[in-house]
């Protein structure tokens, strides 16, 4: 049975990865927009994104749009792979042995 990924296993991070991997590989989503869509607070989303970034599962880009700071987030290639493996591991638990 494949192992679950301990970083992704946390429910909020699982939802974040599910959301980010739904986008195309080249697409990035705005931090504030993602926060609203997942119904999270700034601090909560920020902390979980840091954990995912440290694991190399997401890419974070800070930039300015109309002179305002903006943060864009995207799933990295290793993050997509790890998430797919994690979901496969969850599905394996559901299947009868």
């Amino acid at each position, binding site marked *: *049975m*494949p*192992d*679950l990924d*301990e970083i992704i*296993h946390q*429910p909020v991070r*699982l*939802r*974040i990865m*599910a*959301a980010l991997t*739904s*986008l*195309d590989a*080249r*697409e*990035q*989503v*705005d931090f504030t*927009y993602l926060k609203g*869509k*997942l119904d999270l607070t700034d601090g909560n989303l920020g902390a979980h994104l840091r954990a995912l970034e440290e694991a190399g599962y997401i890419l974070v880009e800070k930039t300015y*749009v109309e002179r305002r700071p*903006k943060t*864009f987030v995207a799933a990295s290639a290793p993050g997509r792979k790890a998430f797919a493996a994690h*979901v496969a*591991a*969850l*599905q*394996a*638990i*559901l299947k009868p042995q």
Partner: protein
Amino acid sequence: MSQQLSPDEAAALLSQVESARATMRHVIREHRGHYHLWIWGAAWMVMPLLAYFGGDQNARYFPLVCIVAGALSFLAGFSQTKQIRRPANLRFGAVLLTVWSFAALFPFVLRIELEVRSLYANCCLVAMQSYVVAGLWTDSYLLWLGVAVAALILGGFFFFPALFWIWMAVFGGGTLIVTGFYVRHFWR
């Protein structure tokens, strides 16, 4: 770690994954270009209707309609990149520029008489050529839309010349608008 989770817990986590994916599918549909299809669909309705009701001389207003639609389309695109963005694809931009630049030269090189309907049909075909190229490059719905509308343009031009302007308003502009609704509500 897998062994520590019960099937019920795993099912609950997978349900959260599906819920987040569903939310993002909705977001993706909001960013798949339906505003552009609606804006240009409306422009493609207005232009032929201007010519149909006011005569071919009203074609002089076509560039103005295109400028307004282009500005609205730019604003819609700019507003959406604040939420979801992808790095500018310069190579793709260069391909589209090449398509339009060469298409603009062909009528002069071939010394074709610039009759309004021919010119309009040609411009619409070049636009659909861009859709097909964009579809091959990015999202496949654009490919099928480009092929279908190009076929409709040719059908109207060759087989229903008396109805050309109405045909173009309904099957050109109308198809773009209906596709906009399809993309907004059903695509992926």
